[in-house]
């Protein structure tokens, strides 16, 4: 089960990404009710991802790519760290309070404030969920291939 978690987590992330795109289009079309429901499902999917991610971390606390993929070239390693992983991690943590704030304003029916916050949050959230899938692909599919040389 734990071995399947990364794939499940990545699927949840991909699902969030698609739902966020849908929700974005829906609100642009003025379909606010459908938007609300889509975003709620996206939030649940992202939250489930976060739970799955943390559970996996408990079981595999040390996942340094230097030990997992010793043959990976330094170029790829630094590219992964500084271009993909670190921006993803920083934004993933930073977006949490903003998602909460956006949700709170939606709950309070404060639409102007809801828009003001979420016109930033949506891009970060989209970015984080997309790169989440990318990171899964790298760690579980591409890096093992690059390392297997």
């Amino acid at each position: 089960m734990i071995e399947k978690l990364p794939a499940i987590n990545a699927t949840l992330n991909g699902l969030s990404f698609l739902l966020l795109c849908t929700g974005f289009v829906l609100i642009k079309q003025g379909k606010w009710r459908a938007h609300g429901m889509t975003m709620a499902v996206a939030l649940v999917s992202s939250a489930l991802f976060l739970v799955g991610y943390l559970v996996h971390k408990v079981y595999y606390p040390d996942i340094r790519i230097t030990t997992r993929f010793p043959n990976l070239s330094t170029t790829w390693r630094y590219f992964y760290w500084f271009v993909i992983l670190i921006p993803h991690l920083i934004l993933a943590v930073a977006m949490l309070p903003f998602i909460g704030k956006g949700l709170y304003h939606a709950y309070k029916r404060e639409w102007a404030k809801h828009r003001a916050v979420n016109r930033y949050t949506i891009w970060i959230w989209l970015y984080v969920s997309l790169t989440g899938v990318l990171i899964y692909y790298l760690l579980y599919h591409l890096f093992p291939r690059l390392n297997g040389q």
Partner: protein
Amino acid sequence: MSSAQRTLTVALWFLVVISLLGVLAMQRWASRRERGDSHMIVLNPDQPTTLPADEREPLNIPAPSFSFTDQNGQPFDASMLKGKVWTFCLFFSECQGICPAMRQKFEAVQSVTDDPNVSFVLLSVDPERDNPAKLAKYAAASKADPKRSHLLTGDLEETHRVARAFLIPFDLPVNHSAKIMLVDQGGIVRSFYTGTDDDEMKRLAKDIRTLLNESK
């Protein structure tokens, strides 16, 4: 769109594009490497097996059938490996020589793929002392995936016969080979690797991957 929002979206799009380009480059790199020359004998039904570049003996022998007991005390039969890519090597749990040296490198190779169609068979050359309980202890201390590792023990005569059939005979337990044999899905021994040599173990990892792709 406010300027702050524009900056944010442009920065994020930029990162996404750079990341995707990087991943594409890595993919190309990976497939170029995998196409690169392997020492493994690639079986071609239309042509006789050819000698690889380093004049290694061509191995095209069938893996012998055998039946031993595994670390869980269960009978383990060669037929259980049908359709899998598997490695075969000799060891014994009290080995102070090549086994510990091999073990670390071999475990690194085993973690290269998590494909369930790969198995690692380790046959004890010291069946008198290596009972299943002892093998279980040895397996538990290892970093290798317990589901794909089969530590076997059994009759000494049978052990000699199987080791000879794999072309790695031994006389005394302490005097066993460090060779790891690679067997394909059809039960053919395709190549062999020195378990204490880093380059050879990298080659093993690569060849396991090639065999897995061959069946796809």
